[in-house]
């Protein structure tokens, strides 16, 4: 996290309370949230992940609609706390994080930038259009993040977290995580 002096306790009075200045636009807020990393995959932000669905002002309260990735994702509470901390740093004190279930999160909402960062980090990004239909083992062509070979095989449909599958590269023999399409 960026350690600016903005949250150095009570002496940080250089920012007026939000009610007395213009309410920052949704785009500005989105820009701040672009700097909030996903706790489990810190190279991508909550905006890259596509979980920030809507940002709006309701009277003097900033409402951020956040959708969970997987319903049991243990990072959900931490993500909310990180978003709130980031907004408070900008002097916003009336914040409401609204859980939005529908439409359900899908990997298609991960930004192109986010996909590039995933691959760079060693996680093969989701191949869209290959979500599970519940019928047997998928035949998805997945690229090895290390050597970029597509000669890879699925080891298990569940990797280190529910959102990933475990793969192995037959070219460089490296095991890797694949971010499943959902």
């Amino acid at each position: 996290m960026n350690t600016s002096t903005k949250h150095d306790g009570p002496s940080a009075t250089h920012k007026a309370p939000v009610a007395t200045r213009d309410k920052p636009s949704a785009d500005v807020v989105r820009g701040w949230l672009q700097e909030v990393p996903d706790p489990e995959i810190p190279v991508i932000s909550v905006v890259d992940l596509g979980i920030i669905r809507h940002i709006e002002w309701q009277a003097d309260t900033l409402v951020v609609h956040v959708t969970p990735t997987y319903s049991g994702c243990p990072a959900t509470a931490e993500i909310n706390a990180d978003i709130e901390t980031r907004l408070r740093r900008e002097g916003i004190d009336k914040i409401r994080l609204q859980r939005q279930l529908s439409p359900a999160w899908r990997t298609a909402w991960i930004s192109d930038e986010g996909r590039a960062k995933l691959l760079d980090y060693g996680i093969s990004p989701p191949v869209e259009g290959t979500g599970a239909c519940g019928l047997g083992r998928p035949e998805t062509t997945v690229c090895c993040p290390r050597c970029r070979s597509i000669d890879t095989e699925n080891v298990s449909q569940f990797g280190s977290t529910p959102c990933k599958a475990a793969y192995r590269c037959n070219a460089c023999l490296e095991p890797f995580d694949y971010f499943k399409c959902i």
Partner: protein
Amino acid sequence: MSSSNQTHSESGASPFEFLLQMGDNCLILAHRNSQWCGHGPALEEDIAIANISLDLIGQTQLWLGLAGEVEGAGRSADDLAYLRDAFDFRNLLLVERPNGDFGLTLMRQFLFDAWHLPMLKGLQQSTDQRVAEIAEKSVREVAYHLERSSDLIVRLGDGSEQSHQRMQSALDELWSYTGEMLDFDDLSPTLVSQGMVPQAQGIAEAFNQHVSETLQQATLTQPASEFVRRGGKTGIHSEHLGYVLAEMQFLQRAYPGATW
């Protein structure tokens, strides 16, 4: 149980009790699966089963959260999970069956998934928007559960002589518990007639078709017996549920209100 449900008790399960059924199935199966954590036969399977538990616990929070809201007595998802006794649980008998060997655990998961996926697909059309949203959220996760369990049933059923024999005996042991999933006779008829819950028939057909195709591929023989064991959905459980709850609820019972 709260007296607010008594008006429904004569004519079948209330919306509250139906939501408990959905949540309790996820919760008890997740707990059973979590007992494998660190004991799986292979690292990948150990991780997979723990992650499936995580999905199911997430879904439990959604279903029991809504159940508490519908009941209107101020009970949270946690209250419902940790502070009810066995007779107030509404899960299927299938999901409280002991783990047995890994084959039995997998077969239990497969039979449940094969019902859970079409059930959630049906519930996506629920006239209750909140139910439809939870189903929409869960259905993509459960498609992966069924994909994995179907794949493993085929590989182990059509595997070695020993794996085949274990999968067949798991199927024979669990088959009589599947019937309880396939009719909604325990529900108040208005739940189906008003469209909160889909027709049972379509779900039973989807279950039967997927199960018979998968078992055929797995070279396993579907048991001929039509005997059905019931009770879980109306709160009449086997002795096994008590042991699950004793372990799962211990901390909240011993240290009421404890938090992280």
